[in-house]
């Protein structure tokens, strides 16, 4: 099933992204808040640079994890979570 959006998410400015072995610790200075992301969510955040559509991100995650199918639902859920936490726009 193709991705439903041609929007190109962009990581919010002013984020401090710290990578650890099993995820990401992200400090959002505008809200003085720390976010704890799993590996997929952290990669989505890092790859959201305004040049990739949701479909591009699905393809990228599939390739990185060598998945047999498009992780469409997981990527959609991840992006929705990142938007809700105001980490991407």
């Amino acid at each position, binding site marked *: 099933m193709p991705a439903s959006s041609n929007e190109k998410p962009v990581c919010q400015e002013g984020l*401090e992204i*710290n990578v*650890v072995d*099993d995820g990401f*610790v992200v*400090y959002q200075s505008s809200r003085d808040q*720390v976010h704890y992301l*799993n590996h997929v969510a952290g990669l989505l955040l890092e790859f959201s640079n305004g040049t990739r559509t949701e479909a591009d991100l699905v393809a990228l995650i599939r390739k990185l994890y060598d998945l047999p199918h498009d992780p469409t639902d997981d990527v959609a859920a991840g992006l929705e979570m990142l938007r809700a936490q105001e980490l991407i726009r």
Partner: protein
Amino acid sequence: MERLPFLAQQAEQALELRETCHIDVQWDDGEYRISGGGFEDEFEASLSLAYAALFARLHDKAMQQLPDHISIHAASLMGPRGLCLLIGEKWSGKSTLAMHLLSAGFEVVGDELVLLKDGQAVAFPRRFYIRYQSLDLLPALAGFAGDAPFVNADIHQRLLAVDPQTLGRPWHIRPAPIQTVIFLEPHHGSASAMLPSSKVDMVRHVLPQCGRPASNRKGWLADLSASINRSDTFVLHLGDLPGATEAIRQSFNKG
């Protein structure tokens, strides 16, 4: 005067001496006046409160010299590859476990505060405080209770201030990388069990126990995250002390 040893500590420290200061405590017209150290004068009606004010002033003076350090509320002991931190909420059993580890031969260096900067962690030099009620769990320390300095934490609670050297244990405080971080979850009355923790979860556990640097330097969270990421991380469901001690010993031996 007999309680001043509660404040003093004679740990061997591999740290640079940066400043000395003079602090006065004077009995003045029905109250104690605490002055000096670059702070405003304080006045306390009781000797216990005057001791507390004096100790707080010394602590604040020391922390002024370390504006870039992250402060972590943790007990600490030296392992084969660096410092092991014991972290937990109040009443998790952190200090009692630290004292049991001391009795079991581990090199415990602190029971309250660790300072971290650029991947190097060091215990804040302070005697180890033990509640009288905890001595039932620490039979090896019971013989020293009568001679140890103490302070009244409140009307119901007396804290012993223990110097590990009086127990024949070394007390050599020096900076080291963090080797292990153990988060304690109370499991009192049951067997202890220690399980590996993810790094993200451990940062989540540790951060509420941290004070950011006074300077609020950029990258302090990266410093903390990287230090935890490099370390072995565990959650210890703290029940019996011998079981917890053995679990920690095994984690040190695995290297």
